[in-house]
C-alpha cells in the first residue's frame, strides 16, 4: 500500500508547495501594485531603475533584434522559395518581429540581464541586513526597492520592444537588400503596407506584461533570498528561470487572447 501512497504523497506535497509558492508570488505582486496608490513615492529610485533597466538594456536588446531580424529574413526566404513566395519576406519579418520575436526575445534578454541583477542586488542587501536597516530608518522596502523597479520595468520594456522591433526589421531589411536582392523601396513599402497598428500595439502590451513579470520575479526572489553567497546565487537563478518561464507562458496566453477570435 505504501508503495502506491508514497509517490502520491510526494506528488501531492510538490503540488501543494508549488501552489503555495504561486500564492506567495501573487500576493507579493498584488502588494506591489497597491503601493502604487499609497505615498510616499521615491522618484529618484524610479529614475535610477529606469536607467538601469531601460537605457542600459538597449545594447543587448538591439543586438538580439538585429541578428534575429537578419536570420528571420534568411529563413523566410529559404522557406518561401519552396512555394515561389520569396516576396513575403518583408511582411513576415515585420509581423514576426512586432508580434512575437521582438517582445519575447527582448523580454527573455531583459529577464536574463535585469531579473538576475535585481535578485542579486536585493538578495545581497537582505543577507547584509540592509533591508532591515531600511525598515529601521522608517523606509518601507516594498516602496523603496520593489515598486520603483517594477514600475520602471513595466514602462521601459515596451519601449525596448519598440526599439527592438525597429532594429529587427532593419536587420531583415539589410539582409533582404544586401544578400537576397530585394529592392530597397519595395522592401520598405511591403513592410509598412502589411503592418497594422494592432500588430505593434499587441507587442507593446506584451512588453509591459513581461516587464512587470521580470522585475516582480527579481524583487520577490531577492527579498526571499537564503543566507550567504549560495542563498543569493539560488535566488538569482530562480528569478531568471521563473521570469523566463512566466514570460513564455504569458506570451502564449496573450497571443491566445489577442489573435484567436
Amino acid at each position: 500500500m505504501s508503495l502506491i501512497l508514497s509517490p502520491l504523497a510526494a506528488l501531492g506535497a510538490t503540488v501543494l508547495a508549488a501552489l503555495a509558492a504561486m500564492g506567495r508570488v501573487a500576493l507579493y505582486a498584488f502588494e506591489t501594485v497597491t503601493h502604487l496608490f499609497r505615498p510616499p513615492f521615491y522618484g529618484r529610485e524610479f529614475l535610477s531603475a529606469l536607467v538601469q533597466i531601460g537605457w542600459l538594456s538597449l545594447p543587448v536588446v538591439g543586438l538580439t533584434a538585429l541578428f534575429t531580424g537578419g536570420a528571420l529574413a534568411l529563413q523566410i526566404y529559404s522557406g518561401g522559395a519552396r512555394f515561389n513566395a520569396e516576396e513575403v519576406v518583408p511582411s513576415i519579418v515585420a509581423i514576426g518581429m512586432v508580434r512575437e520575436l521582438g517582445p519575447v526575445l527582448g523580454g527573455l534578454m531583459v529577464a536574463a540581464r535585469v531579473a538576475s541583477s535585481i535578485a542579486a542586488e536585493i538578495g545581497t542587501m537582505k543577507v547584509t541586513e540592509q533591508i532591515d536597516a531600511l525598515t529601521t530608518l522608517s523606509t518601507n522596502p516594498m516602496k523603496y526597492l520593489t515598486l520603483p523597479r517594477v514600475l520602471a520595468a513595466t514602462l521601459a520594456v515596451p519601449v525596448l520592444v519598440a526599439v527592438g522591433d525597429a532594429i529587427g526589421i532593419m536587420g531583415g531589411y539589410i539582409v533582404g537588400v544586401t544578400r537576397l536582392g530585394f529592392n530597397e523601396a519595395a522592401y520598405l513599402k511591403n513592410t509598412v503596407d502589411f503592418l497594422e497598428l494592432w500588430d505593434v500595439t499587441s507587442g507593446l502590451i506584451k512588453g509591459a506584461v513581461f516587464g512587470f513579470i521580470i522585475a516582480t520575479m527579481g524583487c520577490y526572489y531577492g527579498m526571499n533570498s537564503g543566507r550567504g553567497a549560495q542563498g543569493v546565487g539560488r535566488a538569482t537563478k530562480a528569478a531568471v528561470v521563473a521570469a523566463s518561464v512566466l514570460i513564455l507562458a504569458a506570451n502564449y496566453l496573450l497571443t491566445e487572447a489577442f489573435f484567436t477570435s
Partner: protein
Amino acid sequence: MITLTDVHKAFGPKHVLQGVNLTIEKGTSMVIIGGSGTGKSVMLKSILGLVVPDSGTITVDGNNVQTGDRDAFLARFGMLFQGGALFDSLPVWQNVAFRLLRGALKRPKAEAREIAIEKLRRVGLKPETADLFPSELSGGMQKRVGLARAIAAEPEIIFFDEPTTGLDPIMAGVINELIREIVTEMGATAMTITHDMSSVRAIADNIAMLHDGVIKWSGPVAKLDTSGDPYLDQFIHGRAEGPIEAVR
C-alpha cells in the same frame, strides 16, 4: 521604558525565545550577553518589529510595538547593525543622512549634508569621508559610519548589535567610548548586544544574560563579578567547563 513580557519566538522546531521577561529603564544602557545563537538578535529585532513574536508582549513607554503608527514608532529608534548594513549605492554622507533626506524628518539637502558631516566628525571621521562609498572604507570606518547613521536623527532609543565585533582592540575601545559618550550626552536609552566583555564593562549600566531562551540573570554592572550565578560566571570568565554546554 522598554518592557518584554513572556516573549516566545520559534523558527520551525527551534524555540529561540522561551519566555523572555526584561525591563530596560529610560535613559539607561542595557547590555545583553549570551552565547552565539541564543536569540539576542531575535530579541532585539522583536522590539523593532522586524521579527513578530509568537506570543508575549513588548511595549515601549507602555505602547505595544505591534500596534500604532509604525513610522512614528521607528522614528524614535536608531540602530547600529553588526556589519554596518550601509547602503552600497549611496555615498557615506547620504547613508548617514538617509532619514533626513526623506520621510517625516526630511530636511533641505545642504542641511542634511551638514548634519551628516557633523555626525561623522562626532564618530572620528574626517569630512573627506563624506563623499566616499561604503566599499572604499575599512571595516572600522564602516562601523563608525553605521554609528553616525544610528545617531543622525538623535533618536531616543539606540540599539547596537555587536558594535566591536571584527575590530582591533584600539578601534573597539574608541567605539565603546563613543557609545558611552553618546548615551550619556544624548540621554538616550541604549541596548547593546555583545560578546566582548571589555565592551560590557565600558558601555553597560545594567546587564542581562540570555540563555536557553530566557533571561538567566540581570542586574547592574557593579554586580557582574559577584553575582554568584554559575551561568554568568562561566560566560564572563570564558570557561569551557560549567553549566553552559560548549557544544550547542
